[in-house]
């Protein structure tokens, strides 16, 4: 019985694979033909339209989540500033400490650098997706403004530090402004679409 089942199964495989000969079982031949008509063109057109509409929806959703140019540029610039400071702390920590007139703590500088690079990733997220921008603003702007305020204390001590920290502070404030403008424009666009 098992052999018979195997044989019958192999015969079906051959037939469905287009290898069945004219000696094949007539019931199998009939079933293989009657059960496998071509799908009607109307059905294909209907599903094509569904797939195309879904693809258009996905494109629209991606477009809607792309941040405005101003927000993207400010977030990217702040991310760059954080990375610059973080990498600078690692490669030139001793020089920075010397210019600030304080003892160099490699351990603290290294861990601070890692934290700054993590903050840079968070800031960069706002340059990629609008939906991530709120989190970027909440985490990066306070940090950037704090660094900016700290920069005032370095005036007359370390010019490069002043320039970097004041830039970070300004970018932190600009990030809030860019986020607010982007949000306002998005909400206005939605209202107009609804209207």
């Amino acid at each position, binding site marked *: 019985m*098992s052999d*018979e*089942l*195997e044989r*019958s*199964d192999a015969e*079906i*495989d051959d037939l*469905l694979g287009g290898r069945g000969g004219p000696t094949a*079982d007539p*019931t*199998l031949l*009939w*079933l*293989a033909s*009657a*059960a*496998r*008509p*071509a*799908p*009607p063109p*109307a*059905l*294909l057109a*209907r*599903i094509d339209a*569904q*797939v195309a509409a*879904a*693809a258009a929806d996905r494109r629209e959703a991606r477009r809607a989540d792309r941040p405005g140019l101003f927000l993207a540029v400010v977030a990217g610039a702040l991310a760059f500033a954080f990375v610059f400071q973080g990498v600078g702390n690692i490669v030139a920590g001793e020089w920075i400490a010397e210019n600030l007139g304080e003892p160099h703590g490699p351990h603290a500088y290294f861990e601070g650098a890692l934290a700054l690079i993590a903050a840079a990733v968070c800031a960069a997220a706002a340059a990629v997706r609008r939906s991530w921008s709120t989190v970027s603003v909440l985490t990066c702007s306070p940090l950037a403004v704090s660094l900016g305020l700290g920069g005032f204390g370095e005036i007359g001590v370390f010019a490069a530090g002043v320039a970097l920290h004041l830039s970070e502070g300004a970018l932190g404030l600009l990030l809030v402004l860019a986020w607010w403008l982007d949000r306002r424009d998005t909400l206005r666009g939605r209202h107009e679409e609804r209207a």
Partner: protein
Amino acid sequence: MRFEDVYREHVASVWRYVRLRVPSDSDAEDVTSVVFEKALTSWPSYDAGRGSVAGWLVGIARHAVADWWRKHGRELPAEHPGGRTEQTAEDDPEGDALRRLGADDVRRRLGVLTAREREAVALRFGSELNSSEMAVVLGVSPSAARMLVHRALGRLREVMDDE
């Protein structure tokens, strides 16, 4: 793997499977369309590690066919008195409807089979699944799946001889 490519590769087999399970081609078109609508929605969560695309689509198609029968089974015209064959409509309403209302020979003849045999034939010949793939879908061993098809073919031979 893009959904567009998956759809093009599998639309014929899904359509053929569904067509063998509902009475008319227009019903089959509606159900097939629903299958791909659901597949499109679920595509991001499809996990290739859990089975083939063909098996995944057949799983969706089986649910869509079951939903169709739940919604439309009672709307189909009732059988004339005395017109019943060996199985009753209560046992197998799908088979009963296919026997009476099937749009072509293949569906009317499949209506004579038991629900499991009809499903096995639709999977083997409509979806063109092999015995192992059928076994996964039906939750049986590959040899049991082969046996279902074998029995179905035997009954179809009898029906065709009687005609």
